[in-house]
């Protein structure tokens, strides 16, 4: 079976596999090359691949509590399924990040229900960033609940196991063309936050909207992300995680891996497929195959990040 594994995986090969990156694929980032490996193979040859089976942290995204249209009339149910999946993992990840769109319409009762559901996660730390669906009221509800960690700025950083985590907000200052925006204050804060930090520090950046432009006509990108990425360029391992587009799209650029997570609520069409990023209706037996959760592990020596996406079915 190991013969299936390319000994010298080419970037083109990696990208080709990314296009089919579905359930049960583990992305191993080594030396700037992202190589997809079958999960069963990874499990049987962990040592050879130096893949740890301890996820450092989990990413949940786009729970959209309050959504009740045909694409998924029971988003609370699929979030519960996600939580059950996480709680059944043999080794508990240390923390969870939620990359936004916790709620569908920023309503207090939707935040309450989301908090009640997420409290079922058997994990001590939950870190969040808002999605544009969480701040349709200007941010009052989101910040009253999650603003404390950041003095009501929304963006903040923290360290865990030698990894520097940076939470960015790109849904409060939209560009006129519909792309997300960070804004000058946040960019200045980011530059200051990184100043003096060793380039060997593994960095994890998380935000709601993609930090690279996947599809401008649908606003799938962040207008001033390049500025932020220029501050991050010197670091040896940068993992940039987001949600927003309800499907997996990845990109590797030098030492930077960009990765979008699935939603736990409903899928969206691929870029440009339809009049807009409307909730995608799929046959009910297909839905849970398109929803899921992402686990990430960062290793220090050698510096590398592994990203693994699991679906609910």
């Amino acid at each position, binding site marked *: 079976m190991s013969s299936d594994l390319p000994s010298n995986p080419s970037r083109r090969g990696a990208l080709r596999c990314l296009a089919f990156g579905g359930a049960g694929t583990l992305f191993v980032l080594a030396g700037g090359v992202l190589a997809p490996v079958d999960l069963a193979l990874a499990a049987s040859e962990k040592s050879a691949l130096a893949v740890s089976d301890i996820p450092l942290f989990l990413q949940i995204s786009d729970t959209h509590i309050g959504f009740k*249209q045909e694409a998924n009339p029971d988003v609370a149910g699929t979030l519960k399924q996600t939580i059950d999946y996480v709680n059944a993992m043999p080794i508990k990840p240390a923390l969870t990040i939620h990359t936004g769109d916790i709620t*569908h*319409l920023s309503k207090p009762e939707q935040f309450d229900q989301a908090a009640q559901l997420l409290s079922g996660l058997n994990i001590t730390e939950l870190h969040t960033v808002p999605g544009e*669906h969480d701040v*349709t009221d200007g941010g009052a509800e989101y910040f009253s609940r999650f603003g404390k960690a950041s003095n009501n700025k929304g963006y903040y950083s923290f360290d865990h196991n030698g990894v520097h985590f940076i939470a960015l907000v790109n849904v409060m200052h*939209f560009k*006129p*063309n*519909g792309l997300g925006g960070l804004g000058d204050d946040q960019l200045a804060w980011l530059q200051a936050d990184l100043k003096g930090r060793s380039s060997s520090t593994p960095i994890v950046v998380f935000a709601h909207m993609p930090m690279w432009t996947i599809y401008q006509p649908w606003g799938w990108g962040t207008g001033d992300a390049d500025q932020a990425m220029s501050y991050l360029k010197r670091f040896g391992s940068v993992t940039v995680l987001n949600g927003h587009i309800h499907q997996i799209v990845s990109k590797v650029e030098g030492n930077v891996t960009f990765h979008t997570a699935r939603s736990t609520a409903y899928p969206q069409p691929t870029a440009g497929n339809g009049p807009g990023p*409307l909730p995608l209706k799929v046959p009910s037996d297909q839905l849970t195959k398109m929803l899921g959760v992402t686990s990430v592990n960062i290793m220090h020596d050698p510096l590398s990040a592994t990203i693994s996406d699991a679906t609910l079915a």
Partner: protein
Amino acid sequence: MLTTILRRALIAPLGAAMLMAASANFSVAQAQVTNAVVIKNFMFSPMSLTVKAGSTVTWKNLDDEPHTVVDDAGVFHSSALDRDDTYSFKFDKPGVYKIFCGIHPYMKATITVQ
């Protein structure tokens, strides 16, 4: 005897309610003909609308995705409209109002008030 009185008492308000409902329907229908904007497939339709000062414009979202109705100059801002939700604003001052969706800012429209 008692039942008859009760029945009459019920019928009268019911009739009045039906009349009220009918007239309410009529005025909504009329508003839709003149000052209604629908939001469908990530577009305001019509994308430009001209009304007289004092008119009320009503937006209705027909997408499964929520949208908001935001005036560029900050005069008004709807909450997130779920599918079939509506939002109305009465335009008293003449001028050109640039409208966009706060969730999908590339969705744009104008309301001209004469």
